[in-house]
């Protein structure tokens, strides 16, 4: 068990290293002098500035050494200085991350509750109008890109009805909740669809298993069968999917924060890419990728707890 966790963590580290290397080395793929590229645009490119970039990135040393230093600095939360803001990148990130985290957390709560609920309902009432309604609605919401959904929500609930504020991330718990409701909903809509479908599918599959019929043949009450045999067995894929979707949402904030004008790391990334602020872009990418890997690993570790067959395979693996 511990060995398997250890192995997962080692895998996490390896993937993280590889991904960070890709992020770091990307600048070498850019046409031209990496220093010029890193200096962010050609506006007011003084020799001093180039020199500063060379120093910050240790551009005179071999690639691997540079990477090592960069990584070392990153580990010490020294992510360099933003070219656009002139501020420490780590400060920029730390002031924006809470918004993003709150947004993702809120969206996660929304899609888990709504998605799993709808999925279970559809599966239990399979073939009925409830099922059709759930399947129909989710097909629809899954097909609306989050930014379009976001804009529609803004237009309707923000502008027309004025129920929700459409800017800023609010203060205090209630304020944050109020401010983030629309963006979280916009992000969650697609996810609700995914989760509802996965839940429904997993429940239907779990319900088709022989042991469910066996339980029914033994005269167990239906609600017990659904709870202990169908839902319980469907949890694996559902939890995995929830984890994956949550992890992916970190990146999904790129669009949503832009739509709602939220200052999180997503909009920071878009701004940084547009203004060639590469140190910031690198740092945000690294943060998002790390978050993603972390969550997916966590899900991976949780999965065997839900399905002991996997545990057996893993711990012997």
């Amino acid at each position, binding site marked *: 068990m511990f060995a398997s966790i250890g192995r997962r963590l080692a895998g996490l580290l390896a993937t993280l290293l590889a991904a960070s290397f890709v992020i770091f080395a990307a600048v070498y793929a850019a046409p031209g002098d990496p220093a010029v590229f890193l200096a962010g*645009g*050609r*506006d*007011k490119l*003084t020799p*001093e500035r180039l020199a500063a970039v060379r120093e910050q990135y240790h551009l005179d040393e071999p690639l691997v050494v540079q990477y090592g230093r960069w990584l070392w600095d990153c580990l010490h939360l020294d992510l360099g*200085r933003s070219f*656009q*803001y*002139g*501020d*420490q990148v780590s*400060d*920029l990130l730390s*002031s*924006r991350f809470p*918004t993003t985290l709150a947004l993702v957390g809120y969206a996660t709560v929304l899609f888990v509750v709504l998605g799993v609920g709808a999925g279970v309902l559809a599966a239990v009432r399979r073939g009925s109008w409830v099922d059709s309604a759930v399947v129909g609605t989710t097909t629809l919401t899954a097909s609306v890109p989050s930014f379009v959904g976001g804009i529609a929500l*803004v237009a309707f609930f*923000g*502008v027309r009805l*004025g129920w929700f*504020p*459409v*800017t*800023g*991330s609010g203060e205090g718990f209630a304020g944050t909740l109020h401010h983030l409701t629309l963006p979280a909903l916009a992000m969650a809509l697609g996810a609700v669809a995914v989760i509802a479908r996965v839940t429904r599918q997993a429940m239907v599959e779990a319900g088709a298993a022989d042991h469910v019929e066996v339980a029914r043949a033994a005269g167990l009450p239906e609600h017990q069968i659904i709870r202990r045999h169908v839902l319980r067995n469907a949890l694996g894929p559902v939890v995995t999917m929830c984890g994956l979707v949550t992890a992916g949402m970190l990146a999904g904030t790129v669009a949503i924060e832009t739509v*709602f*004008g939220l*200052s*999180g790391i997503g909009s*920071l990334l878009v*701004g940084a890419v*547009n*203004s*060639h602020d590469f140190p910031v872009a690198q740092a945000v990418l690294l943060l998002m990728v790390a978050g993603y890997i972390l969550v997916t690993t966590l899900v991976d570790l949780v999965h065997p707890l839900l399905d002991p067959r996997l545990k057996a395979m893993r711990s012997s693996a």
Partner: protein
Amino acid sequence: SGATTGASTSGTEAADLTLIPTTARATGSVAAVNWLLEDEPDSLDLDTQGGSAGRTVLGNVCERLYQLQPDMSVRPSLVRQAARPDATHLVLTLRDDVTFHDGSRMTADDVLFSLKRHAEPEMEQSDEFGNVSAMRKTGDHEITITFKQPDALFTKALAGDAGLVYNREQVEKAGEDFGTPGQSDACSGPYELSGWKSGDSITLTRADDYWGEQPLTGKVVFRWADDSAMVNALATGAADGTYADNIGTAAALRGKKGLDEHFGPSTSTLALIPTERGGLADPDIRKALSLALDRSGIAKSGYGGLVEPWATPVGSGAWGYAKDAFAAAQKQLTDAPAKPDAQDLAKAKELVKNAKKAPAEPIVIGTDSSQGRMVIANAVRAALTQIGLKGQIKTVPAAQYGEFYGDKEARADIDVLVADWYISKSDPFGFYDNGLSDSANNWVGFKSPEYDAKVAEGLRTLDDAKRAELAIDVQRRFADAAVWIPVAQMPTALVLDDKLTGPPASMAYLYYPWAAQLGAKKG
């Protein structure tokens, strides 16, 4: 749902707007106001990153040697008195009662340090010091500046960012971090910077031991939002006011309950700037384009009728003196009609037909994709089609758009830039030096020795009336050559909760402690 989803663009014509420099005086105090900016300032060190967001904030925090007044005139501020012993010397006598926010007293050393910092080549304001040959401390409270030749605009520059006075000790201590979140300001002024939560807000609080008059408003919290969010925030009362950088914001909020809108003079214009690429190298083609451009259409479609078709590249806010003369002269320019009539079009086509270097390739119009600029770009394309030429639009993300102004390479594949331009000085000459043969902003390569001479003379001429005469002459030459193609002048738009009043409505807000005037209508 039917035909109602299109916007009802109320037919506000710019001509209806009367530009009033300031709002009624406030009498009541206010604990705090929420103010909106179009964007988070990149930095609060205006020497390294200038921008209107930063200026809007710092106008209240950092005082300058001179001060731009709401009516766009300039008056001494941290300078008690100025003297010009001869045409090439300026002696500034400083106030001795000024304290910085950390309590220390402003000294001549601080002033000299600040001026020298502004003058460093990589700093934003360095070009203002191009004429300066020496800056010296000549007394405990005295600085003497020596010019290579007489400079009529220098004191006006000192009302802008070139006149900011920093507390030397604090700036040096902060080093590279100066101007970033978490640092304090190093200034004197009615407000002090009490917090900058990166990505969230900037807070100013009333400076208790301010050497001047105490403001009515205790705290100003700045947040930022893009256009639509800004409109919503103001409409719902989440914010108390803004200087709408994008005039469309003001257009969208017109007539909203609970809000007042004030429009004041600005130097700002919308213009087309032909570039080095050469599609518009021929002045006749430029003039033809100018003649064919539907300026009032642009004003209506792109800016809700809040901008005014304009024939010069400087807004009326630049008329810090001799206003009437300038106004009359502006009316005489006919090459930039508000709405081209048949005659204009015929003339334009004629010009194209006879042009020496009619472009074979489509003319590339550079812009970002913001609504107003896209409308201009589209209008330019339409105008070009009308006069028998081809246009093509190239857009870049908003964040890259700024590069067009400063970076020749970024402009390399566009022929004309859809530009917003303002000058900080309330003097047309502050603009016309852009037409000098050696100016970095003379992209199209306009060369005219007479023009150069007249500008040089104007810049040397300290007498306002004489300078105005020269300016009008230069203005005509610039228009004749269509070095730039003016589109419209853009007023400053102040959107304010209708319980508040006080701040100026003119472009002075960028350099003037506007929040210090802000207060409730009734006390």
